[in-house]
């Protein structure tokens, strides 16, 4: 396998972007990534997108993206793993470069979610659950994570306040990210008094519905060395799956797919959890961040809540988690999320993260999750 490096990143401001279409957003992000890399042609395109069919009535976006990026006839693929589609797109692009199938690959992620009503968006997202045995009984995504939260609180004593502190921390970080959908701070009381969605989760425990896109350019490390830019290598790219339905998991309070993907990633990169200087995890709900911290080995089982409360994962803490603002504050255009996580780590490793910069960050990790944990994609990045 060839070593792989990131040579370009492109991110647009996320939000409710009424004036922009799916193709507008992914082309804008893609062009920003090409400009950052200083190139205008690529050998291959991979785009992560969960559900352009349900959100926009548009499938076949591999062709659409290649066309509107002015790259035809290059090969292009759309990949889907629910909310982990972006992470899987990066892994697919990584495999193409590492294997020699392609040299320069544009990896994009996009989701245009506000072209449908809130209930239609909820339905589209719900298709990532087991349609026949979860959605059929009235389950929603907040509901699935609420089921995990209820069990986690009972088993480990995780508190309602600890959940709220995840949202508060991520909004603190997101207030320093100009691309975030909700770049403002919130307080614990605001979370605790916000409207209940699925007990015990309230609306401020939930990531929002977002329009957004993000893109990366990757290439072989040897090629990247010829560019006059800070080198960022991808030293691990892994994925693991688990039962699609929550009832099929061995433990409701444990995200096995994140554990398995992270374990393989540490082996691949030759690193340990405690080596990471900056970490982006899939905080689609506050409980998810706590459970993923445990699964990827930052803390012991059941210790995610107290760790957040003690500031372990705050900017300036031992393991800064979600310096971008996470899904909570930055937004969660599902297919774009995994790509944007990678962009945050690349920016941190290049020391381009501005006021939220983690000083001297050399190693970073991303964890992107599909559904209620039916899939997880992990990447490790290292400054060259």
């Amino acid at each position, binding site marked *: 396998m060839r070593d792989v490096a990131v040579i370009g990143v492109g991110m647009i401001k996320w939000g409710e972007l009424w004036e922009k279409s799916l193709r507008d957003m992914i082309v804008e992000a893609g062009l920003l990534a090409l400009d950052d890399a200083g190139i205008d042609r690529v050998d291959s395109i991979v785009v992560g997108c969960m559900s352009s069919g349900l959100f926009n009535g548009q499938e076949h976006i591999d062709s659409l993206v290649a066309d509107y990026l002015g790259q035809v006839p290059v090969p292009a693929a759309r990949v889907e793993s629910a909310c982990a589609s972006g992470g899987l797109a990066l892994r697919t692009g990584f495999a193409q470069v590492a294997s020699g199938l392609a040299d320069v690959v544009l990896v994009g992620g996009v989701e245009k979610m506000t072209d449908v009503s809130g209930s239609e968006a909820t339905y589209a997202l*719900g298709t990532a659950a087991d349609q*026949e*045995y979860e959605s059929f*009984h*009235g389950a929603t995504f*907040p509901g699935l994570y609420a089921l995990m939260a209820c069990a986690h609180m009972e088993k480990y004593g995780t508190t309602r306040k600890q959940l709220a502190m995840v949202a508060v921390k991520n909004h603190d970080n997101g207030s320093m990210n100009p691309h975030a959908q909700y770049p403002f701070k919130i307080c614990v009381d605001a979370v605790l008094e916000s409207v*209940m969605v*699925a007990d015990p989760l309230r609306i401020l425990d939930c990531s929002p519905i977002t329009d957004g896109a993000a893109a990366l350019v990757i290439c072989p490390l040897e090629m990247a060395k010829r560019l006059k830019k800070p080198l960022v290598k991808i030293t691990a790219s892994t994925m693991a799956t688990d039962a699609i339905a929550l*009832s099929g998991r061995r433990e*409701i309070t444990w995200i096995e797919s994140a554990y398995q993907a992270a374990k393989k990633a540490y082996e691949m990169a030759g690193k340990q959890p405690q080596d990471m200087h900056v970490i982006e995890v899939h905080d689609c709900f506050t409980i998810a961040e706590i459970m993923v911290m445990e699964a990827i080995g930052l803390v012991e089982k059941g210790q995610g809540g107290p760790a957040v409360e003690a500031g372990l994962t705050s900017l300036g803490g031992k393991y800064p988690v979600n310096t971008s603002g996470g899904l909570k504050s930055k937004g969660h255009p599902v297919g774009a999320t995994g790509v944007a996580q990678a962009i945050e780590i690349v920016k941190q490793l290049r020391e381009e993260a501005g006021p939220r910069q983690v000083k001297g960050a050399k190693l970073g990790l991303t964890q992107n999750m599909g559904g209620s944990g039916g899939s997880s994609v992990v990447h490790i990045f290292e400054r060259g």
Partner: protein
Amino acid sequence: MPNPSRLWREIPQRYRLEAGRCQNCGYIAFPPRLVCPRCQSRAFETVRLADAGKIITYTVIRVPPQPFADQAPYALGIVELDDGVRLMGQVVDCGFEDLKIGQRVKVEFRKLYEEGAAGVIHYGYKFVPE
């Protein structure tokens, strides 16, 4: 609206709780599977799930998906049946304040929801505290 054949083919599970038991390792698959996720055996026999168990986690859905709009708020739980199989479903005929982990429930045949204006009525299982 989806073709009713989708509903019809799920009747053995929804109405009769039919599962598959692996003849090699004893794993009970619900819904039935063609290959055992534990031992890769493909030999299954049809068994009926236990009709009682206990709640292992629960929530109250306050923002429902469209087909359940007229039912919210409603309780949703995961129940571990006495044969060890876990099922998701609504917990009914009780106040939300009575929900607790470990609560014994029985499985009952109930109406779930109606699909569309003149649509199919979906039936299936729900949980009722014992």
